[in-house]
């Protein structure tokens, strides 16, 4: 009944990601980064991106390293214990080439939730008394000239339902132009099912104007519609479905594969040097035609080593020993 939204990564990025867009990237540190989609954004030379996310990692670091990000609203930039601070993220801020606004993970989640709910803000007590409230990364001028930025970073207000003076922090909504999500399962009609940890992916997708979903498994709409309460995103909210197995590599995808620790550790080392980072970017992204060719560079041996043990959803460590 619904027409197919199935297309290639290249086509999906061409149609729905534009220079200057406010982009939200799914996943969390070393898990389910939509790498195939982000590699494609890099290949298509999309510039001047405004990135909004909570805990960014590999996808974010490449976008920053390639100079594609001009504004960043974020809570965390690290690769778990594999990179306590993401390297190109750190360098760009230290060198002053990237403007960043610091929130907390809950606040970024609430910003997406407010976007989902269509309300201007959501309240929390988190960060009262801290520099998260006091220090702003973006000036008032920047804010008033960019409609995608909230007028204020945060606002502290009185609770009108309390008898005694009681303060609460209001966190502004964000509605990205496009969200990139990598899922375990999707159908060509746009129905999406995430399995395992969902992070804030559902909120990021529902808050965004356009949603591109890459998936490990392409299944029939009928199969997903057998248990609609276990689906994560309804078909009407999804613009493009990209079937891309191993689409989150080198980050993990529960039930399918683990993070590629070797690759991430090597990246961390290379990223520390500008020249070597450029080479990495060329070799693994820019000079590669598509994600399947990228996976050939990684090699079947490595990919086999990170394959998930079915009953655990990740690759058993002792099996390597």
């Amino acid at each position: 009944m619904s027409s197919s939204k199935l297309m290639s990564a290249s086509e999906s990025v061409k149609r729905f990601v534009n220079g200057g867009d406010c982009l939200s990237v799914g996943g969390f540190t070393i898990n389910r980064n939509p790498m195939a989609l982000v590699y494609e954004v890099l290949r298509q030379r999309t510039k001047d991106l405004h990135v909004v996310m909570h805990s960014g990692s590999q996808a974010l670091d490449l976008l920053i390293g390639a100079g594609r990000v001009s504004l960043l609203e974020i809570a965390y930039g690290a690769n778990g214990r594999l990179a306590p601070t993401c390297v190109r993220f750190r360098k760009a801020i230290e060198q002053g080439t990237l403007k960043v606004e610091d929130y907390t993970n809950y606040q970024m989640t609430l910003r997406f939730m407010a976007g989902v709910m269509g309300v201007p803000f959501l309240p929390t007590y988190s960060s009262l008394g801290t520099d998260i409230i006091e220090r702003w990364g973006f000036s008032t001028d920047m804010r008033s000239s960019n409609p995608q930025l909230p007028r204020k970073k945060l606002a502290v207000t009185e609770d009108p339902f309390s008898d005694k003076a009681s303060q609460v922090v209001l966190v502004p909504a964000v509605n990205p132009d496009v969200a990139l999500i990598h899922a375990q399962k999707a159908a060509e009609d746009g129905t999406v099912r995430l399995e395992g940890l969902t992070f804030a992916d559902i909120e990021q997708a529902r808050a965004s104007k356009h949603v591109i979903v890459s998936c490990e498994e392409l299944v029939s709409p009928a199969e997903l519609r057998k248990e609609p309460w276990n689906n994560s995103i309804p078909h009407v909210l999804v613009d493009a479905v990209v079937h891309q197995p191993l689409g989150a590599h080198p980050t993990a995808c529960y039930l399918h594969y683990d993070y590629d620790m070797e690759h991430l550790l090597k990246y961390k080392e290379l990223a520390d040097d500008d020249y070597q980072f450029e080479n990495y970017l060329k070799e693994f992204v820019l000079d590669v035609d598509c994600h399947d060719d990228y996976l050939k560079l990684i090699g079947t041996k490595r990919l086999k080593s990170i394959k998930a043990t079915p009953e655990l959803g990740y690759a058993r460590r002792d099996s390597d020993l």
Partner: protein
Amino acid sequence: MKIEYSPLEMMAIACSRRIQDDDIVFCGTGLPLLGAMTAKKTHAPNCVVFFETGALDPVLLEIPLSVADSRVMHGASHNGGLADAFAFMQNRFSGPKVLGLLSGAQIDMYGNLNSTVIGDSNKPTTRLPGSGGACDVASLVGRTMIFMKHERRRFVEHLDYLTSPGWLQGGTSRQEAGLIRGGPVAVVTTLGVLEFDEKTKRMYLSTYYANASVEETVKNTGFKLSVSRARQEPSPTPEELDVLRTAVDPFGLILD
């Protein structure tokens, strides 16, 4: 017979001892997680491990290297998303039961933490990862325990950026700022354990490890530290060490 152990092992065990059987323990990765896992396998079998990514009460067969590691959720009772996990901490019934384990690059005498920048926040010398969920946990849960390398440059008079609230300016300032509960109860360092004065909320030395000393602690703290209440932290017991080494981190992923 003298038992050999490393400072990291001592820290994990000092943490473990301070976890109670009815705690819901908010964990990051690394040492704090080892502390929680050790507690669960020794004196606090009913404590529940909980991650900001939403996994509640998992069976940790292997040590996760990130809170987003697929390893955090095996056998859990529930996996919500971030929205769910933080709501659980802010909730008036579940929040007070949560013990948050945190760390940071800098700490001040009131247990406030910096994990954002070193230097000027608009042009930092060193950019750190940022709050992540740390500020949320420090703001919302019943009590927190903090892990720190005990170095003078980390125990500072003034933070470069106050990322996660401790007792703010001490005394009743935390409540006055509008924070609804919580605050740090202990700082587990490479040299000992610091606690906070009930009234002033200033940090004082509570225990020092057998391998360390009161003097070493004072020397490595960048602000004046009261030591009058200091006593020695008991060394790890053979059982504690055995659980930590064989059942918690058998591959030495964190301890080595």
